[in-house]
């Protein structure tokens, strides 16, 4: 186990995440995203550090992480392209698109190109069916795709023309929460007691004998 795999900045953000929940374990998935933002995937070193941060064994972190499609315990390309083939996209040519993508990228679904630029995956419904067929690149949507527009997308990605729109794989949310929790337990206890008393006195005043 390597202590300090996460950068100081990532570690600080992970600790802020832990503080947002009633139990540190809740921060597990958000911190996995954070680790993927740093490395592109979940390295064994990151998993060990996440386990320490949320008070679990590394095996438990792996057990959770491997359940979820977006968390990768193996290296992936800089761009993960997920092509939806579920019913709404299938009715609008998704399998033909996926086949084209495999030919274009010279990689089978589930694989990564030799240069490490693209990982291609077949996705389940991505909830953007109004512009089917769709794909995501690092979880940014591209809709109304045709083989030709897919080729353009790949060329744009390779040339860096979409760098502003599509960050490297793992970077999910570029907007940071400002500040931690504002409501301390003491405030809540006081407030709720006052509210309960107010309700009780109102009930009494209205002569409601049921309360």
């Amino acid at each position, binding site marked *: 186990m390597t202590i300090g795999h996460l950068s100081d900045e990532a570690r600080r953000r992970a600790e802020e995440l832990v503080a947002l929940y009633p139990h540190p374990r809740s921060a597990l998935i958000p911190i996995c995203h954070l680790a993927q933002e740093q490395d592109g995937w979940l390295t064994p070193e990151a998993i060990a550090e996440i386990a320490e941060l949320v008070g679990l064994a590394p095996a438990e972190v792996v057990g959770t992480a491997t359940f979820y499609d977006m968390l990768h315990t193996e290296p992936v390309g800089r761009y993960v392209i997920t092509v939806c083939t579920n*019913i709404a996209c299938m009715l*609008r040519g998704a399998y033909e698109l996926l086949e084209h993508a495999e030919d274009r990228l010279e990689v089978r679904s589930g694989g990564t190109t030799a240069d490490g630029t693209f990982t291609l995956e077949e996705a389940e419904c991505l909830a953007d069916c109004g512009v089917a067929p769709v794909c995501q690149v690092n979880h940014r949507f591209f809709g109304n795709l045709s083989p030709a527009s897919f080729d353009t997308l790949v060329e744009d990605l390779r040339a860096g023309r979409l760098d502003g729109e599509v960050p490297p794989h793992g970077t999910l949310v570029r*907007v940071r929460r400002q500040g931690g929790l504002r*409501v301390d337990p003491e*405030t*809540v206890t006081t407030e709720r007691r006052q509210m309960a008393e107010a309700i009780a006195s109102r009930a009494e005043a209205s002569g409601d004998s049921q309360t």
Partner: protein
Amino acid sequence: MSPASVPRIVTSRLGYEDSHTLERYLSSGGYEGLRKALTMHPEQVAAEVDAVSLLGRGGAGFPAGRKWSMLRKGPVPYLVVNGDESEPATFKDHLLIERDPHQLIEGIVICAYAIQAAQAFLYIRGEFALGLERVTAALNDAYEHGAVGRDIFGSGFSLDVVVHPGAGAYICGEETALLESLEGKRGFPRIKPPYFPAAVGLFGEPTVVNNVETLSNLPWVMVNGSAAFTALGAGRSTGTRLFALSGHVHNPGVYEVEMVKTTFRNLVFDAELGGGVPGGRQVKALIPGGVSAPWFGPDLLDLPLGQDEVADKGSMLGSGSVVVMDDTTCTVRAAWRITRFFRRESCGQCTPCREGSGWLERILLRIESGSGRESDLDLLMDVCDNLSPGLAWPPQQTTICVLGPSIPSSIASGIRMFRDEFLVHVKDGRCPYA
């Protein structure tokens, strides 16, 4: 009432490019519903919502007000918002999250006030990267504006909201699986009883779990009152509802329409809605409420979009998604793709679902690829019957959650409605549509 005169309850801002910003929200009546709610007593707010019969917009259609009233008394409850929209062909919450995050946040605070929660968790599907960014930015602005945090608008009520990203798992839309996921675990649905998170929810505490669209209705209800809401729709299906229309239509998209007063035919064919089927082709079948729902034939196009109306015909409005399949669609292939989805997303806890989904997918693929046998049709129905005895609707339960018993919907529909088409695959040894 013509569609044009029906108020847009949850989509009123979507015509604006900047619909996701606080500026736009405030300039179009934003946070007025919350200000009004905070002048009322929490139980009055809850009573108002109970009075509108706001059927949950997530899929199960359980009335929001009832859910709130079932909370175990004593501990401070949690509010958990289900924004894990993953039912195939459902993309309405996606729209609300990206395009009007303040409306959702306002709904969250109104609900939290009514149930006196001190912390809310907004669980958003991980794939919604833009939605997560928009909601996070909106939440920062809402804290700054005093609509979230300590002493909201000087009312003495305080609430923290935490945006929580999922990581890609359909099953986490099931509310108890969502709670497990929010606790940092695999998304395994919890064994029932206890049936309701209102009794035992997040970390064992009483918890209300409401859907994004459900909560997005609350600001309008607070401003306009319950009578204005119940004036729309009919019976238990009050108000408007978002329908996500996809497949073989001219204008796929999300439409807000009045419940019951609108029919499937309106949704699919009206010029301002779906605009009809391209190429002059015919509707072969439609999926009325997400892929867990049994299919309808074109004979039911005139059925109203109401919860009970659709249930009476043996299906459900479910997640509010309607998939149109025209007469060029291979229904074996459609059933196979839907079954493949369930096989991939089964969490694996229960044998009938874990094993049954794989068997069904392989049998369907065998038929679609031309290697099927006539006996495969009975075999499919037999495996379906093991997943959901009697193949009734709503389905009998053999598993911890409803994912497993939902698998037979498309297969049984396909075989019942298009038996000949399945047999042609077997007899000809190939798919007639390939």
